[in-house]
């Protein structure tokens, strides 16, 4: 009880002192428009196109087109060209590009054809580099595997922004003439992603000095969660002024018994979540891990039922998350999630889905997520008292700290010993200029049949709950249609039994009267 009171007090304090508004999804602007133009054999966007799309989406809205699909560039503020193979570009297209009034970021092959505009010459060969560094800072990182870059020379009006090294030699990776840019590799993942993220701030003319945001998401909260431990975790977070973000699954299937537990089986958890939510904790919906044979419709149904089940207890998730150890989700799962949620909190790192597995260092809104905002878990996760999921936290934090408006996001499983969490929080504390991310102060929305949840920058959460009483009752007690019928019978029969008992009392009272009447009738 005392612990509970302390939690309440501490959380109230956190809420009181951290009411500053957070800009929703950082710099994402729907006014700035970019075009990603790609040349490849398949004429369909590949993994790297999507990485680019993801990175750009932090700053602008993009269209993705193959080089043969473009007829007009007038509506775009930026043009990103990414060439995966050597190809003679159409004169018409080259004219369009050359005449483009706004910055061009040219990536990979075919830059020679645009020499009039970008003073870069591709020598036709490639170089394997092992490290990457930023020219204007001391920042250097090693690639996890050697990175193949185009060997280029550049004109005098161009300057080197990023270079790669092999041995004692360095090679330009990213060069600019102040307006246009050239990137010497179309393999954007790995460390290049972070470097590119940094320079994109310059490309989009955004102040590099914008702050970092940080969050710790508590995961694996479900009807079988140890409430005492969860209380310890949330109390600790509150005591350290860390906003509480809880990823909740309304159902939990015991792997051994295959028995499905619902919220109704854990009233303690419901109480806990309600009080935390009341005190400002952000609840997010943990997207279920579906087996392969589940149909799209069944998936949708499960998500809707999950949201409705939570809402029937007045627990209102404001975003969706993919569990950190979930590896099997598909593009379809992303599509389904985007139908219901405006915001996703996840790490793509362990995903086997190619378009999703490269996580940008900041908040993005990639095209393939159908306008869903992705808040990345950039630091990995701690699970089962083991920090192997944490990606070299110190180094990772340092890397991220250099990226404008980067997100330091970590997932901690609800059952992990507090000492690990404490250790991680200590690491977080070493990052200067970081602000804890207050999810509830973002403009987020969740829509499912009968349920609509919307949070705004003031931290208010608007709920539109149109669920009928019967529906709420059904979710609260996890009733099947048959059980509803049977409980209705119980109700009706109980009413009748009560009525019959009243009749009996009445008959008893009337006994004398009826005796008299009957005697009279029978003469």
């Amino acid at each position, binding site marked *: 009880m005392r612990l509970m009171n302390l939690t309440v007090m501490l959380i109230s304090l956190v809420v009181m002192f951290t009411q500053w508004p957070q800009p929703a999804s950082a710099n994402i602007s729907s006014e700035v428009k970019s075009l990603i133009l790609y040349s490849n054999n398949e004429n369909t966007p590949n993994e790297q196109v999507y990485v680019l799309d993801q990175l750009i989406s932090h700053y602008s809205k993009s269209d993705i087109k193959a080089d043969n699909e473009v007829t007009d560039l007038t509506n775009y503020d930026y043009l990103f060209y990414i060439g995966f193979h050597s190809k003679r570009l159409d004169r018409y297209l080259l004219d369009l590009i050359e005449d483009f009034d706004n910055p061009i970021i040219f990536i990979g092959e075919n830059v020679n054809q645009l020499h009039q505009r970008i003073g870069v010459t591709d020598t036709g060969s490639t170089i394997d580099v092992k490290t990457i560094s930023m020219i204007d800072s001391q920042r250097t990182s090693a690639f996890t595997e050697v990175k193949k870059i185009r060997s280029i020379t550049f004109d005098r009006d161009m300057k080197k922004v990023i270079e790669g090294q092999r041995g004692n030699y360095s090679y330009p990776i990213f060069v600019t003439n102040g307006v246009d840019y050239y990137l010497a590799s179309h393999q954007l993942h790995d460390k290049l992603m972070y470097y590119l993220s940094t320079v994109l701030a310059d490309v989009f003319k955004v102040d590099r000095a914008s702050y970092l945001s940080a969050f710790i998401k508590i995961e694996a909260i479900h009807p079988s969660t140890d409430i005492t431990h969860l209380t310890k975790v949330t109390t600790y977070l509150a005591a350290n002024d860390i906003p509480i973000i809880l990823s909740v699954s309304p159902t939990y299937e015991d792997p051994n018994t295959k028995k499905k537990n619902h919220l109704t089986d854990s009233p303690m958890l419901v109480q806990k979540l309600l009080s935390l939510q009341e005190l400002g904790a952000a609840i997010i919906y943990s997207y279920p891990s579906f087996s392969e044979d589940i149909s799209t419709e069944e998936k949708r149904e499960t998500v809707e039922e999950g949201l409705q089940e939570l809402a029937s207890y007045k627990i209102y998730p404001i975003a969706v998350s993919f569990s950190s150890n979930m590896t099997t989700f598909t593009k379809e799962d992303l599509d389904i999630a985007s139908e219901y949620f405006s915001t996703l909190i996840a790490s793509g790192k362990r995903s086997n889905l190619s378009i999703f597995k490269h996580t940008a260092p900041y908040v993005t809104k990639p095209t393939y997520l159908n306008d869903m905002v992705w808040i990345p878990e950039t630091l990995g996760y701690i699970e089962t008292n083991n920090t192997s999921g944490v990606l070299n936290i110190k180094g990772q934090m340092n890397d991220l700290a250099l990226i404008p408006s980067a997100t330091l996001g970590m997932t901690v499983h609800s059952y992990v010993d507090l000492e690990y969490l404490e250790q991680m929080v200590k690491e977080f504390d070493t990052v200067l200029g970081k602000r804890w991310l207050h999810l509830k102060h973002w403009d987020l929305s969740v829509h499912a049949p009968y349920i609509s949840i919307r949070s705004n920058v003031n931290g208010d959460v608007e709920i539109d709950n149109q669920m009928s009483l019967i529906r709420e009752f059904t979710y609260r007690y996890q009733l099947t249609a048959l059980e509803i019928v049977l409980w209705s019978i*119980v109700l009706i*029969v109980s009413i009748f039994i009560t009525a*019959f008992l009243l009749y009996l009392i009445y*008959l008893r009272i009337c006994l004398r009267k009826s005796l008299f009447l009957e005697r009279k009738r029978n003469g």
Partner: protein
Amino acid sequence: MANTLFIIALSIIWMMLLYHMFLMQGGYLHYLRYAKPIVQWNEKLETHLLPTVSILIPAHNEEVVMERTIKAMVKLNYPKDKLEIIIVNDNSSDGTGEIIEYYHSLYSYIIPVHVEPSEAGKGKSGALNQGFKVSTGEMIAVYDADNTPESMAIYYLALAMVNDPKAGAIVGKFRVNNAGKNLLTRFINIETLCFQWMAQAGRWFWFHIATIPGTNFAIRRSILEELEGWDVKALAEDTELTIRVYNLGYYIRFFPAATTWEQEPEHWKVWWKQRTRWARGNQYVVIKFLFRFLNLDRKSIVFDLIYFFFTYFLFFFGVILSGSIFAINLFVDLELELGFISMILWILAYLLYITEVMIALSIEKDQMSKRNFITVLFMYFTYSQLWIALVVYALYLETKRVLFKEEMKWYKTERFDHKRP
């Protein structure tokens, strides 16, 4: 599989229980209302004339009860010039004939009909047809030979019939005069009260349906003439007649103001034989009409036939199924998903049963006793369960009869002489 079967059983059982709950509600309301029109009807009698009445009493070796029955008939409060009491002596080998003749010599309106041996042995229907042949009344009333109607019984039957032209027949209430004799008669007493206040009064109240019982009812002569009397082939001649009356477009009114008292079996063996006959009779009727119910003009009676079908086939099946699942589950875990709620439902079923029976008992002025209450609690697990065995047995006999084309035999319920020690 077990779950599906259990759900099927549960559904069937609860359909029946809910229907009966609904009927009990109607029965209670009918109890509150049935006597209300009596005053008005009495006033109207000045313009309507009381009908001439023929009472038919089939009697086959009834010397034990005959005299008492005739004495009750003589005491009937009905104009004697409009009354004839036709006692059909159906080939009795005891003193029944003499008793009838004796009272005939005292009261001219008691008319004996001695069925010739050649005509005899056609059961109750046959005897009633014999009596009907010599009757003259506009209204035909039927009593069993062991009945002692209350003095106003015939008057009330006639009153209701005169005032309700749509009623083809009026059915009165019967009470058990040997209820206190032993446990069996106490069970039967409770059962008959429930039947009348739940099934008869309830169905009448909601649907204007009642079943003609074997005794204490009156039917219009015109209807019997149209139907050409009773169906001698029917084992349950009353159910059969009910259906035929409804088919002519009339209804049957349950009017409990007309009361008779009758004797019920005091030995289990007698009870068993009587009930087997009823069950077989009803099974026969259900099968006979169910397959051509589309030809029945009055659809309301179809509903009642379905009810019989439920009682003797589906409900029976449901109970057997549910019982079997319960028994198997004692030894093998069938992983029934509805364990908890089905327990609650079971408890509610029991409570419902108790309250329903208590209402039926409380309606009668002297029946709501502590002794009866305990009997009711106990009855659920004993007497009520015997019904299952009875239906099985009756089904067996009926199946055998149909398969081997056996002749139907009419079993006459044995009477008990209370004057004997």
